[in-house]
């Protein structure tokens, strides 16, 4: 146990403590102690306000879409002849890195990209526009691109959950006259609860720390309009050269991730009695 603890302390806790410490110092050359000045930028800097808005949108999108789509695809492909091929198609994007997914979607979403070309060819040119240029549309299309990739793992988890449901419970429900929807609502869904907790918990954390797709697609632009807190942290630290502000964003982001995960998992696991 000791080596593991040492590694956690050296590579996780020590940098975290240092980051908290740094966040209380100014970014000027002499770096004086500046109390909560770096944190106050959340109230005064419109780019950070937008970043918080975007992060919330990402959390909602990355929790809802993979959950709903994953559950739907898993249910539809659980017991069909073509289920293996269908599942492969959905799961395959999950094997791709975020950067590779971003490159593919960049090819689709730029103003002269594939999506607008298809729309123009279908005489729907009026719908063609710069998908990555205007807020909030650019954030929404990136959330959709992320869902395209992230749904795969939700499908796998829900399939495992579906296959662990005892068939007798469904047969009993059918004998009692329950229809398909009632079986799903009252028999399948409650038994998928443990899997759902994991899918939502994972999506929640992924949404809060989303970075790679955004960075490759827009680098947080144009005009910092698509930044999430993770991107803002990088941008402030390495591009704007304000490591103190970057550290403050890192601390806030960490607190949000920890608090959200802890509240969610505690509530869910308590309900289950574990």
């Amino acid at each position, binding site marked *: 146990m000791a*080596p593991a603890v040492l590694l956690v302390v050296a590579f996780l806790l020590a940098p975290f403590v240092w980051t908290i410490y740094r966040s209380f110092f100014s970014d*000027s*050359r*002499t770096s004086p102690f500046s109390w909560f000045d770096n944190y106050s930028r959340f109230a005064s800097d419109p*780019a950070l306000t937008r970043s918080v808005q975007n992060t919330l949108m990402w959390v909602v999108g990355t929790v809802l879409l993979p959950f709903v789509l994953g559950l739907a695809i898993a249910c539809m492909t659980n017991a069909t002849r073509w289920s293996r091929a269908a599942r492969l198609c959905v799961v395959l994007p999950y094997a791709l890195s975020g950067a590779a997914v971003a490159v593919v979607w960049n090819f689709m979403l*730029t*103003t*002269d990209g594939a999506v607008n070309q298809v729309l123009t060819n279908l005489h729907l040119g009026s719908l063609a526009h*710069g998908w*990555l*240029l*205007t*807020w909030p549309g650019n954030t929404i299309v990136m959330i959709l691109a992320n869902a395209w990739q992230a749904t795969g793992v939700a499908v796998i988890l829900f399939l495992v959950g579906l296959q662990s449901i005892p068939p007798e419970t469904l047969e009993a429900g059918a004998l009692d006259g329950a229809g398909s929807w009632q079986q799903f609502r009252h028999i399948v869904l409650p038994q998928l609860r443990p899997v759902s907790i994991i899918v939502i918990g994972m999506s929640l954390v992924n949404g809060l720390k989303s970075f790679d797709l955004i960075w490759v697609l827009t*680098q947080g*632009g*144009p*005009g*910092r*309009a698509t930044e999430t807190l993770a991107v803002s942290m990088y941008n402030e630290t*390495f*591009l*704007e*050269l*304000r490591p103190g502000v970057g550290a403050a964003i890192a601390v806030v982001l960490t607190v949000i991730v920890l608090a959200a995960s802890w509240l969610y998992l505690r509530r869910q696991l308590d309900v289950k009695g574990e």
Partner: protein
Amino acid sequence: MSASGRTRRAAAPLARRSFLAGTAAAAAALALQGCARGESTSAQPGTTSLSNDNATWDEGYRSAGRALKAITGSALRPLSNPSVTSYQQVVQMTLQTSKASDLVKWASGYQLKRLARTDGLTDLTGVWDRYVSKGWVRDASRDAASYRGKVYGIPLYESYYVLFYSKPVFAKLGLSAPGSWAELLHCAEVLKRNGITPFLASQVGGWPAIEWFQELVTKVDPRFYQKLVTGQASYTDAPARRAMDIWQDFMRKGWMTSPDFDQARGPGALKSGTVGMFLHGTWQAQGMTAVGMKPGVDYGACILPTVQPSTPKSVIAESGVFVVPRRASSHGAAMANVGAWLDPSVQRVWSDFLQDSSANPTVRSGNPVVAQLQQDIAREHRIPLIRYWEASPPSLIQGNTDDLGGFMAGQTSPATTLRRMQERARDEWAAWRRDEA
């Protein structure tokens, strides 16, 4: 059974511990080796290491290095990190170590001043003065390579911001290189009428958003630009507003590519005739060659005309520099190489590779288009202006570049964009001056 069970239970943790200990030792050894940085930047006789953020230039450095070796006995050994952001972090961190690279490619102006004030660079004033006495460097660019009166950078190249245009397209439409603002507008109208986007404009990658801003402001009033970038004029003043209005007018007329057009595709777009003019540094000539375009045949270049005929003529110049870390592994060899870098025999090879103009004014570019530009700039006594990216404190430039990107995407009006830029300028200049004090 219990005995064997105990044995198994006792053996398993031991094996796991041994495995963990072995792995930890191996990781520690690798980490120490990595920290020692024995391979890449340590002294290697006959070469000097060169940190570089443009991997496509490695071959050019090697060729120029062979010419350098004939003079100094040391060739160049490029170490490339093509991500500009991570490159900057790596350079700033390695400056603090005992095995910094021998030479580092860096930007001039305030980017250099910021690096120089870490006290990790060698004073190159003597080298600069020797170059000036031989006429191998323009002393006018001294300030862009200096911090607090001392020179810390030797120019790596000298590029100008120009309008590349497609000669076949212009010939087909009966157009010639615009020599006045009215001619520029005429070219744009004719190109647009023929289904060709007149100008390439982009904010992909961030920094390209500055290109049209700096170009239009300097062609409205170059003296104002000089005051603006040194904090003596306001972004909300009339010349800046005029430049932004022109820019917005061009965008509204559909004269510019969409802001998400990647300018890496610029040479290809010019060749295929989908874009008429491409505003960029002359170092892009290498990209034109890469797509098979011949200078003077397939493409030409001119400097954007001034908005009023009476406006003084100017040109935006960009010059990267070589710096020598104080703790360079082969400091003596590095000093010898920066001392010979601008030698015409070295610059001939380097300029031919780059297809661009040398920082040594006695070396004429091998690219006829760039050579003609060099000649015109000298003949017309154009005011050389430092590129916006290097012209003010880095934090100010980065923030303003973001704002210009937002403007290009239609998020903010000219007035709002300029107001934000001015607010940032006020804060960042105050911070810079406070730090300097």
